[in-house]
């Protein structure tokens, strides 16, 4: 079974890849795939008909319980027979249909093979989700096949329409299948149908599944895509839109009907939709002047009938449905092929232009009559047997609405007879009087090799009708696959004198009458359509919906994507506040103390004043200094909170950040509002901004209280306690914060210094690309006066601060300090050198280039992290060293020191790069405001 699917997939992929390099012979290659299927069917058919089941299963995603289950019973065999049998005939037909000179048929034939494979998979799937995957694959391949001529706008429209309708229907189906599988606890179709009580299935699942099936099988009101799909080449339409794909929905309904038909909403929906589809499809088919469109609407009508029949969920109707599936596949494929032949030879499918064709056309005419007779339900064709069985089923039916259905089906059959007659007359050129000048005068008869597949199908339509015993055992087995305990009647031409026969006779009589009075019928239809013309049609409604969705998308874009950063920030802030504060507020029930200790009051109020000041001041530099003040206040708070490492880090960082701010802000105007350009768009109303800021503040206030309470209520043994306990014995360090950074959570630190390195490189790159634009030789470095005293003092200080930094680094494991603090201390010393002597002084004191320091630091940390791996340890496993040093006594340290040294160097490198980037003397740009940067780049 899997071999068949793989053959289809590989052949299809091969042909698509060959693409332009293969002509119509691609279809001969493509025929191999259905041939493999047919051989498989031939060798297994008899055992399957005897009741064997071929199944195969593969655990696809075991953790999600997803398996690929394939299972071939007699019903699948019927579908396989259609897919493979008609598939091989279509390939043969296509080989002659496309001219030898038409290039690039690899894509078309490859897609056809892929479609055939998807369809094969669909009918053998025993898992609802596997079935869904193949279902969507048929939608996608069908989309590509319809839109194959991508330069034709009509083909693109039709393909879009098909994929939108069947694709969204597929999603609805998925929802329904998931609901069904969830409610029943199994996704296996065979289990659902046989052993599971379906009382728990909700009507929602049923409705969703039915909608999915209706879109695929072009039921009202989703039928609009099928006539549109007729822009595809006729062989494609023959295969997809007559014989196989549109039956997928019918197949699914047939599969599930035995289990789900008793859910209350199933039958009313199926009957109503099927009836409307059947009658309206027939009515519209009767109006068409394009033979292919006539067949398309006829297919819609027939699909409606099939939906009713298989949806009944009763074994006699199921058997009738199976016979109808076979009959329809045969006669509709034959008729489509006939249309293709007529179109191929005469160049038109318009019944108003076709005339009586020459003597070479007799075989085609006979085929047309045979197939159309089967479609119309005229004895002794196979279609007649199907219709008889259906009518017998509804007349004797015990389900609600059976008698109404008899009437509807009779009405639909009358229309079917009428449009079948119209088709025959159209092909014969007898439908119009040909007074116009554009009639086809004569046409070459088709070659035998082109018409052979159609003739074969036409003969089959009659022959199986005369000798129905050939399909009797197959239909019986397929029926029993759905209803295991049933005993269906024989499939026979003569079922005796019964009511169904009289109804059939009546249908044929009225149908003949309609065909004879076709002019009056046409006039009546025209009159009705003159009235309903202004009403929106299905197609225009569909495109109206598409346009409305696009309009809605545009409006949404208009509102949402304003391009303004303040608006985006506002939305983010608002959502974040609402998302955290609203859940938080509901879980808060404990009122905290006002303040932990009075000493906190000083730094806290200092922070508040500085923070509010930073928002109010007019000067850039003042705002930056106030930000620094907030940082110092924070550092003070950390001291009070028992966090010396944090305090040290914060002090150093705040100093460095202030230096960087000064370096950058000195080139910017003093005041915020004195820029040469004012914002082109006014930012949001300040009051609105204030509102959001206040909301953020309020939300954080609530969140902070609740978050803290959550932390206080955890059990005594927490992660932190374990870290405190294991710090000395396991990591040989008593400064737990540092131990966490370099050991317990060392991987995080490794990530962090990588981010720092990236930020440093980004800073350098941005500043350097700006620097390249400067005019050379315009530097004022020499002009600035340096203070010798200051220079000397800073040289002395530099050495002692650097020593302190190294001390921090080495003792950090046991006392406040560590790589971050040490690195920042060196950085502070470097910035001191910079203040006194400029970039030159920094270069003199640190001879190693900044990028070497940065990269070297990162490399050392990485090496410390990963060398243990080579020695058989784990990442970041630290070793302990003890040695006796002269003067210092016994030194005990771990390899975490090397890791921390890397951190140290990365921080130093970052600051060196930032000073290199911004520290050059500011250019005299201020003196020439209309410098060349301004020109052409401000728009």
């Amino acid at each position: 079974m899997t071999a068949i699917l793989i053959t289809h997939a590989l052949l299809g992929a091969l042909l698509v890849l060959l693409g332009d390099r293969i002509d119509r012979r691609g279809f001969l290659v493509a025929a191999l795939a259905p041939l493999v299927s047919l051989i498989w069917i031939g060798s297994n058919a008899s055992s399957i008909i005897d009741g064997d089941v071929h199944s195969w299963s593969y655990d696809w995603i075991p953790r999600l319980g997803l398996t690929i289950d394939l299972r071939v019973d007699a019903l699948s065999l019927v579908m396989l027979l259609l897919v493979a049998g008609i598939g091989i005939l279509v390939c043969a037909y296509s080989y002659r249909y496309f001219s030898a000179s038409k290039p690039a048929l690899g894509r078309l034939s490859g897609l056809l093979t892929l479609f055939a494979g998807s369809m094969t998979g669909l009918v053998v799937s025993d898992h609802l989700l596997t079935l869904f995957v193949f279902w969507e694959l048929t939608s996608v391949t069908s989309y590509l096949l319809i839109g194959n001529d991508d330069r034709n706008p009509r083909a693109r429209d039709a393909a879009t329409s098909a994929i939108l309708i069947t694709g969204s229907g597929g999603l609805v189906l998925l929802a329904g299948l998931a609901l069904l599988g969830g409610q029943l606890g199994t996704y296996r179709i065979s289990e659902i149908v046989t052993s599971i009580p379906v009382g728990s299935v909700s009507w929602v699942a049923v409705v969703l599944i039915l909608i999915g099936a209706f879109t695929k099988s072009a039921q009202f009101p989703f039928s609009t895509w099928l006539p549109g799909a007729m822009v595809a080449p006729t062989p494609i339409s023959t295969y997809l839109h007559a014989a196989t794909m549109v039956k997928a929905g019918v197949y699914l309904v047939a599969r599930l009907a035995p289990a789900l038909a008793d859910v209350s909403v199933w039958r009313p929906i199926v009957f109503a939709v099927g009836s409307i589809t059947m009658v309206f499809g027939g009515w519209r088919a009767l109006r068409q002047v394009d033979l292919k469109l006539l067949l398309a609407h006829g297919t819609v009508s027939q699909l409606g009938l099939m939906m009713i029949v298989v949806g009944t969920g009763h074994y006699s109707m199921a058997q009738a449905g199976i016979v109808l599936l076979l009959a329809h596949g045969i006669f509709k494929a034959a008729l489509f092929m006939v249309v293709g032949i007529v179109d191929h030879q005469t160049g038109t499918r318009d019944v108003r232009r076709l005339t009586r064709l020459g003597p070479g056309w007799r075989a085609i005419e006979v085929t047309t009559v045979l197939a159309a007779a089967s479609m119309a339900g005229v004895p002794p064709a196979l279609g007649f047997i199907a219709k008889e069985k259906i009518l017998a089923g509804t007349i004797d039916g015990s389900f609600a609405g059976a008698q109404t259905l008899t009437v509807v089906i009779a009405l639909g059959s009358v229309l079917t007879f009428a449009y079948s007659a119209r088709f025959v007359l159209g092909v014969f050129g007898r439908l119009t009087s040909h007074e116009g000048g554009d009639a086809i005068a004569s046409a070459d008869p088709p070659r035998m090799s082109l018409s052979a597949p159609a003739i074969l199908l036409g003969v089959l339509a009659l022959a199986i009708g005369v000798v129905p015993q050939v399909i009797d055992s197959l239909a019986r087995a397929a029926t029993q696959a759905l209803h295991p305990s049933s005993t269906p009647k024989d499939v026979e031409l003569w079922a005796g004198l019964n009511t169904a026969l009289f109804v059939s006779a009546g249908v044929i009589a009225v149908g003949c009458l309609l065909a004879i009075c076709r002019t009056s019928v046409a006039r009546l239809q025209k009159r009705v359509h003159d009235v309903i013309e202004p009403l929106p049609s299905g197609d225009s409604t569909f495109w109206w919906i598409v346009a409305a969705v696009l309009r809605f998308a545009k409006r949404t874009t208009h509102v949402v994507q304003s391009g303004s950063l303040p608006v985006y920030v506002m939305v983010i802030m608002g959502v974040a506040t609402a998302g955290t504060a609203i859940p938080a507020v509901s879980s808060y029930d404990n009122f905290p103390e006002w303040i932990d200790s009075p000493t906190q009051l000083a730094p806290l109020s200092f922070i508040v004043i500085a923070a509010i000041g930073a928002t109010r001041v007019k000067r850039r530099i003042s705002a930056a200094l106030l930000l620094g003040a907030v940082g110092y206040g924070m550092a003070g708070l950390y001291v009070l909170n028992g966090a010396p490492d944090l305090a040290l880090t914060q002090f150093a960082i705040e100093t460095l950040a202030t230096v960087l701010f000064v370096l950058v802000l000195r080139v910017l105007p003093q005041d915020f509002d004195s820029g040469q350009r004012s914002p082109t768009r006014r930012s949001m109303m300040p009051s609105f901004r204030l509102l959001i800021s206040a909301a953020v503040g309020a939300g954080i206030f609530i969140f902070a209280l609740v978050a803290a309470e959550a932390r206080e209520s955890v059990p005594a043994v927490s992660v932190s306690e374990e870290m405190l306990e294991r710090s000395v014995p396991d990591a040989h360090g008593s400064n737990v914060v540092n131990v966490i950074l370099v050991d317990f959570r060392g991987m995080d630190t490794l990530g962090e210094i990588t981010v720092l390195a990236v930020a440093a490189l980004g800073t350098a790159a941005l500043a350097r690309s700006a620097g390249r634009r400067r005019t050379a030789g315009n530097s004022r470095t020499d002009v600035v006066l340096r203070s010798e005293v200051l220079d000397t003092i800073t040289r002395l200080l530099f050495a002692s601060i650097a020593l302190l930094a190294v001390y921090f680094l080495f003792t950090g494991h046991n006392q406040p300090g560590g790589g971050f603090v040490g690195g920042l201390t060196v950085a502070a010393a470097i910035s001191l050198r910079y203040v006194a002597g400029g970039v030159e002084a920094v270069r003199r004191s640190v001879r190693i280039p900044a990028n070497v320091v940065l990269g070297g630091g990162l490399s050392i940390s990485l090496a410390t992290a990963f060398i243990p791996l080579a020695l058989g340890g784990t990442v970041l496993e630290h070793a302990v060293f003890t040695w006796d040093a002269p003067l210092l006594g016994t030194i005990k340290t771990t390899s975490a020191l090397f890791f921390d040294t890397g951190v140290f160097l990365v921080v130093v490198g970052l600051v060196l790069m930032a000073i290199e980037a911004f520290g050059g003397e500011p250019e005299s740009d201020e003196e020439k405001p209309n410098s060349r940067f301004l020109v052409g780049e401000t728009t």
Partner: protein
Amino acid sequence: MSIAVALVTAVLFGTGSWLMMQRRLTRIIIGIGLLGHGANLLLVSSGGPSGDAPIISGDGVENYSDPLPQALALTAIVITFGVTALLLALGYRSWQITKDDVVEDDVEDRRVLRRSNQDGPESEVDLEDAVPVGPDEDGVNRVVGERGEGDGS
């Protein structure tokens, strides 16, 4: 956490977001700085009541303040510094190019906006293209036409 600390956190977040919602890059950078301070304060103070510095000097683990939020905050402080440096470089560059540090509307977004304001066919070829012209009855009847059907034999 005490009310006072929660209030200060709220002030830092509020002022930070106020500054971030402006168009001057300098203000945005300072806003991010304030927001960063607020986040660190939230981290540290949600670690429970303050205690001794977490530097082990005995056997027990009582009375130490929680080291884990401190380590997280330390990381955050340094990262905020890196971000600030990068943003300052952006401001520097912005000044080099435009002589200003205003964050203008995104050019691509503005183009999208302009396109959605117009309804002409040129403005959105790929959108309008999907909708067929004319209120024809269905996809294919456009070719053959259904109107003249009354003249059947």
